[in-house]
C-alpha cells in the first residue's frame, strides 16, 4: 500500500467517531430518500397493475332503473370498449354479536361468466352459484373485521325483507380499495361492508329483472371520458340518472389519489430536507477537516506532491465516508421502504405488491451526497492550494482578534476572561459560526417537522367533531324522503334531538373552474351541525345563497359576492345561478351549504330530506341501533365517536409511521451535526487549550472555553431553528392540503419543547464526549512542537 493511502486509513481510523457521525447523517438522508422513493414507485406500480389486470372501469353512473336494452346503446357510444350493467343497493347487515348498526353495499356480478369490468380478486372460497339466491361474496376487510369464514351466515334486510345469506367467498375489488360508507370520509370495516351477489338473484330481490340501476364503462382511450360522460348522462337522464363521472370522482380512487398525493408530498419534502441537511453538513465538515490539514498539505507540496495527487488523496477520504454512508443508507432505506410499502399494501388491501429498488433512486442519492462532499472538499483544497507551501507550513499567523461588539459597547467589565475568549472567537470567524448555527438550526427545524402533526391532528378533531359536527349519530336515507321521516326518528328510543339535512350531488362551476361535490341543505339555528367562520366562530346561515368550505372556494376561485353555477346531478338536473355569501372553515372534507328550505326551493321540490343527525341518550343506544336496523329507508348510520376513531386510525396507519421514522432520523441528524461541530472545534483549538492548561488553567476552565462556545451557538441556534421548523411545517401543511383534509398550521408548544430538548440533549452528550477528550489533552506535545 502506498504511504499516502496508509496515511488515509490511519487518519480515518483516528477520526472514526466523527466519520461515523457524518456517515449516520448520510445514512439518514439516503435512507429516507430511498424509503419514500421506493414506496412511491411500488404503490404507483402496484395500483397500475391492479387496475389493469382487474379491469377497473373508467366511467361510472348510477340511476334509478333502466331496461337492459339500453346496454346496447351505451356500448355503441364512441370511445366505449366495455360495458357492464349492474344492480347495486344499500343494505342493512346483522352480524351475530355485534350490536351497532352495520350498513353495506350489495353489488351484482354476472352469473356464469367473469365480469368484464371491476373484476374481483377472490382471496378465499368461490363465486355464488348461479341458481342460488342466498349466496354472497364479502369484502375481505369486512370479513376480517368480523372474523367471518366461508360458510358463515349473515342476516340482511334486502329491499325491506329479512334474509339470511351464506358467505361463500372473500374478495378484493379495484373499485373498493377504499370502502367508504356514503357520507363518511374514513374507512370503517366493521360498520360498513361490500357484498357481491349473482345478478339474477339480486335482480329478483330488487325488482330489477331485465333492468339495471348502475353501469360501469371501460374506455378505449381515457381521453374519451368527458364525451362519454356527456353522452351517458343524455342516455340515462330519462331513467333517473344521478350523473356519470370518471375515476376522479369515484370515491375509492379519489381517496387513493389523495393518499398518494400526500405520500408524494412527504416523499419529496422529507428526503429533500434530510438530504439537503446531510449534504450541507458534509460540505461544512469536509471543508473544516481539510482546512485543518493545511500544514500537511504544505509539507506534501514541499516534497513535490502535485495538487492533483493531494486532491485525490483527500477525495479518497471523502469517498470512503460517503460510499459507506450511501451504501448503508440504501440498504436501510430499501428495508424500511419495503416495510412501509407493505404497510400501505395492507392498508389499501392491494392483492399484491410490486416492490423494487430503481437504480435512478440509488444513483440520485449517491450523486447528491458525492456532490456535497466533493464541493466541501474542493472548497477547502482550493484555499489550501492557493497558499504557497512556505505559507501553508508556517503556523497560521495569530488570528486577528479584536474587541467584540459587547466589549466595544463598554460592557467588558461584565465579562470574565474566558467569556471574552468565547465571544472573540465566535466573532473572529463569523462565517464559520454562522454555519455552525445554521447546521444546528436545521437540525432543530427538521426535528419539528417530524413531530408537529400529532398535535395538529388532535386540533383538527377537536374543531371538526366538537365544534362543528356534534351529533352522536348520523343516518342517511336511501333516497330523498319527506319530512315525515323526522316523526319516525323522533319517536325512537333515546333520541333527544333530530336535525335533518338534504344532500344533493352537484357540479359547481365558476368561470373555468368546476368541482363535483355535495350541496347540503341544513335548517338554520342547528345545534348538532354548525358552520364556523375563519376564526371558528358560529356562522349564521343566510336564507338565500350558498356557503362554501374555504378550501372549495379557493379551488373554484370564488369569493363572497360571486355568482356560482350549480348543476344538480339528480332528478330533473336543473342548472341554477346562486350567489356565494361566505366561506366556512372546515378541516375535513369539502361541501357547499344552503338553508334547507332554500335548497328545496332551488330544486323545486317539496320538503325532502336525505338524512338526519341525532343526539341520543347513551343508555338507550343498543335498543336504538336495533330499531334503526329495521328501517329499510336508512342506507347508513354513522356513529361520531367511531368516526373519530376511524380518523385517528387512518392517520396513524399512514402518516404517523413515517413521521415517526422522520423524527428518529431528525434526532440522529441533530446529534450528528452537533457532535461534529464540537469535535471539529476541539481539533482546531486543541493546542490552544493545552497551552492554557500548561499556563495553569484547570480542566473545567478550558472545557468552559470550548464548550461555552458550543453552548452559546446552540442557544442562538434554537430560536432560529424554531423559525426554520415553522417554515418547514408551513411547506408541509401547504402541500398536504386536499379535499380530504387540510392540516392547520398549529405548532403545539410541546413540539417546540421537543425540538429544543433534542438539540440540547445532543449538545450535552456531544459536550460530554468532547470533555472526556479534553481531559486527556497531551500537554507535553504542545510544548515540544508548534502548530
Amino acid at each position, binding site marked *: 500500500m502506498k504511504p499516502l493511502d496508509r*496515511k488515509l486509513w490511519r487518519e480515518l481510523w483516528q477520526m472514526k467517531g466523527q466519520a461515523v457521525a457524518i456517515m449516520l447523517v448520510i445514512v439518514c438522508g439516503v435512507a429516507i430518500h430511498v424509503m419514500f422513493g421506493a414506496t412511491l414507485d411500488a404503490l404507483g406500480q402496484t395500483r397500475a397493475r391492479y387496475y389493469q389486470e382487474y379491469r377497473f372501469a373508467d366511467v361510472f353512473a348510477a340511476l334509478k332503473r333502466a331496461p337492459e336494452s339500453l346496454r346496447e346503446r351505451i356500448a355503441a357510444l364512441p370511445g366505449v370498449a366495455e360495458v357492464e350493467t349492474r344492480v347495486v343497493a344499500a343494505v342493512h347487515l346483522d352480524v351475530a354479536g355485534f350490536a351497532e348498526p352495520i350498513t353495506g353495499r350489495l353489488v351484482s356480478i354476472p352469473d356464469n361468466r367473469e365480469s368484464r369490468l371491476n373484476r374481483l380478486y377472490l382471496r378465499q372460497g368461490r363465486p355464488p352459484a348461479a341458481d342460488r339466491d342466498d349466496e354472497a361474496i364479502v369484502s375481505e376487510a369486512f370479513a376480517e373485521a368480523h372474523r367471518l369464514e366461508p360458510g358463515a351466515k349473515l342476516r340482511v334486510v334486502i329491499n325491506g325483507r329479512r334474509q339470511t345469506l351464506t358467505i361463500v367467498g372473500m374478495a378484493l375489488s379495484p373499485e373498493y380499495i377504499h370502502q367508504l360508507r356514503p357520507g363518511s370520509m374514513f374507512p370503517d370495516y366493521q360498520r360498513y361492508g361490500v357484498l357481491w351477489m349473482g345478478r339474477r338473484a339480486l335482480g329478483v330481490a330488487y325488482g330489477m329483472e331485465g333492468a339495471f340501476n348502475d353501469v360501469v364503462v371501460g374506455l378505449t382511450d381515457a381521453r374519451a371520458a368527458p364525451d362519454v360522460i356527456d353522452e351517458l348522462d343524455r342516455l340515462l337522464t330519462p331513467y333517473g340518472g344521478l350523473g356519470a363521472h370518471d375515476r376522479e370522482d369515484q370515491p375509492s380512487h379519489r381517496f387513493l389519489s389523495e393518499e398518494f398525493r400526500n405520500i408524494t408530498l412527504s416523499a419529496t419534502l422529507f428526503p429533500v430536507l434530510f438530504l439537503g441537511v446531510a449534504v450541507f453538513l458534509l460540505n461544512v465538515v469536509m471543508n473544516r477537516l481539510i482546512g485543518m490539514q493545511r500544514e500537511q498539505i504544505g509539507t506534501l507540496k514541499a*516534497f*513535490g506532491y502535485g495538487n492533483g495527487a493531494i486532491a485525490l488523496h483527500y477525495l479518497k477520504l471523502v469517498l470512503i465516508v460517503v460510499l459507506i454512508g450511501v451504501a448503508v443508507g440504501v440498504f436501510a432505506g430499501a428495508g424500511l421502504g419495503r416495510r412501509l410499502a407493505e404497510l400501505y399494501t395492507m392498508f389499501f388491501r392491494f392483492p399484491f405488491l410490486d416492490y423494487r429498488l430503481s437504480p435512478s433512486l440509488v444513483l440520485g442519492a449517491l450523486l447528491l451526497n458525492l456532490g456535497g462532499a466533493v464541493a466541501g472538499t474542493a472548497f477547502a483544497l482550493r484555499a489550501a492550494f492557493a497558499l504557497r*507551501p512556505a505559507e501553508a507550513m508556517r503556523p497560521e499567523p495569530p488570528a486577528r482578534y479584536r474587541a467584540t461588539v459587547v466589549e466595544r459597547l463598554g460592557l467588558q467589565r461584565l465579562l470574565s476572561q474566558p467569556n471574552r475568549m468565547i465571544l472573540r472567537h465566535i466573532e473572529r470567524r463569523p462565517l464559520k459560526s454562522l454555519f455552525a448555527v445554521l447546521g444546528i438550526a436545521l437540525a432543530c427545524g427538521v426535528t419539528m417537522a417530524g413531530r408537529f402533526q400529532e398535535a395538529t391532528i388532535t386540533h383538527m378533531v377537536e374543531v371538526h367533531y366538537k365544534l362543528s359536527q356534534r351529533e352522536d349519530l348520523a343516518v342517511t336515507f336511501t333516497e330523498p324522503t319527506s319530512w315525515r321521516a323526522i316523526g319516525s326518528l323522533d319517536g325512537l328510543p333515546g333520541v333527544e334531538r333530530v336535525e335533518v339535512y338534504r344532500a344533493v350531488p352537484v357540479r359547481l362551476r365558476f368561470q373555468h373552474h368546476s368541482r363535483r361535490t355535495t350541496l347540503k341543505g341544513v335548517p338554520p339555528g342547528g345545534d348538532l351541525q354548525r358552520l364556523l367562520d375563519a376564526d371558528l366562530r358560529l356562522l349564521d346561515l343566510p336564507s338565500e345563497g350558498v356557503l362554501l368550505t374555504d378550501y372549495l372556494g379557493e379551488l373554484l376561485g370564488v369569493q363572497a359576492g360571486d355568482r356560482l353555477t350549480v348543476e344538480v346531478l339528480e332528478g330533473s338536473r336543473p342548472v341554477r345561478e346562486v350567489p356565494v355569501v361566505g366561506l366556512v372553515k372546515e378541516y375535513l372534507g369539502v361541501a357547499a351549504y344552503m338553508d334547507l328550505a332554500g335548497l328545496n326551493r332551488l330544486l323545486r321540490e317539496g320538503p325532502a330530506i336525505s338524512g338526519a343527525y341525532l343526539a341520543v341518550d347513551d343508555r338507550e343506544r343498543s335498543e336504538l341501533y336495533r330499531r334503526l336496523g329495521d328501517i329499510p329507508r336508512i342506507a347508513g348510520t354513522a356513529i361520531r365517536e367511531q368516526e373519530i376513531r376511524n380518523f385517528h386510525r387512518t392517520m396513524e396507519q399512514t402518516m404517523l409511521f413515517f413521521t415517526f421514522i422522520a423524527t428518529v432520523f431528525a434526532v440522529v441528524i441533530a446529534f450528528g451535526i452537533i457532535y461534529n461541530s464540537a469535535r471539529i472545534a476541539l481539533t482546531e483549538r486543541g493546542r490552544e487549550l493545552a497551552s492554557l492548561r500548561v499556563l495553569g488553567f484547570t480542566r473545567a476552565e478550558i472545557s468552559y472555553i470550548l464548550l461555552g462556545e458550543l453552548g452559546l451557538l446552540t442557544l442562538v441556534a434554537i430560536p432560529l431553528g424554531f423559525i426554520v421548523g415553522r417554515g418547514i411545517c408551513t411547506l408541509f401543511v401547504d402541500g398536504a392540503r386536499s379535499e380530504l383534509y387540510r392540516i392547520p398550521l398549529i405548532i403545539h408548544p410541546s413540539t417546540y419543547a421537543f425540538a429544543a430538548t433534542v438539540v440540547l440533549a445532543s449538545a450535552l452528550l456531544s459536550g460530554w464526549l468532547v470533555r472526556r477528550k479534553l481531559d486527556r489533552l497531551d500537554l507535553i506535545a504542545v510544548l515540544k512542537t508548534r502548530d
Partner: protein
Amino acid sequence: MTDPRDRVFLARGLTKIYPMGEIEVRALRGVDLDLFAGEFVVLLGPSGSGKSTLLNILGGLDSPSSGAMQYGGRDLGVYDDAELTRYRREHVGFVFQFYNLIPSLTARENVALVTEIARNPLAPEEALTLVGLADRLDHFPAQLSGGEQQRVAIARAVAKRPEVLLCDEPTGALDVQTGIRVLAVIDRVNRELGTTTVVITHNAAIAAMADRVIHLSNGLIARIDHNTQRQAPDDIVW
C-alpha cells in the same frame, strides 16, 4: 569550486514583499547570490533578516516579488505551480525546524512518501540507516525523540538524492548533543553524496562547518565569509 560552470543557483536583485494587514514587510531588499555544486553554505542572521524567505525562494516554496532566481541556468521565477512542484520533486530536499513529519505514518513510511515519487531514490531503509535510525524504521513520530524525528526528516529529504538540500533551523528545536548528531548527518550527506547544502541558523558556532557563511541582515547580504577549513560537527563549541 567557484567555477561558474559549477554554479547551481544564481540570484540577482531578489526582493520579497509581504503584505501584512495594512503594512508591507520587505523581507528581501535586493539580494545577489551564487551557490555552487557540492557547497555547504550557512545562512546566518537574526530573526527577520530574510533567511527563511531566501531559503523558501531557493526551494521553490515561494516566489520573489522581483529579481531573477535561476536554478541550473533556468529562471524559477517564470515557473508555474506545476513546474515548481516538479522542481521540488526532482531537485530539492527540505529539512524544517519542526520536522513536519506526517504523524500518521511511521519513519519508514514518511521516507517512502518521498521515494515513492522520486526518479532514482535510495531505499527508505538505506536512507534511515544513513542517518543512524536503522533500528527505528517502524516507529511513529510520536514514538521518536526530537533528534530522531529530525533525522527522519533528513532521511526523507536526502532519500530522493536531491541536488540541493535546504535546511531551515534544523537544530533549532534540539539540545546541543542531539543538534550535533543532526548536523553530523547533514555534513555526512554533503560530503558523501555531494549535495549542495544550505543551512539556516542563527547559531554562529555552526558556521564553522560551512564552506561559506552568508550573513544576512535586514533583507540584505551583509557579508560573506569563506572558511578555509571546515570544522567537523563534533568539534563545534556552542
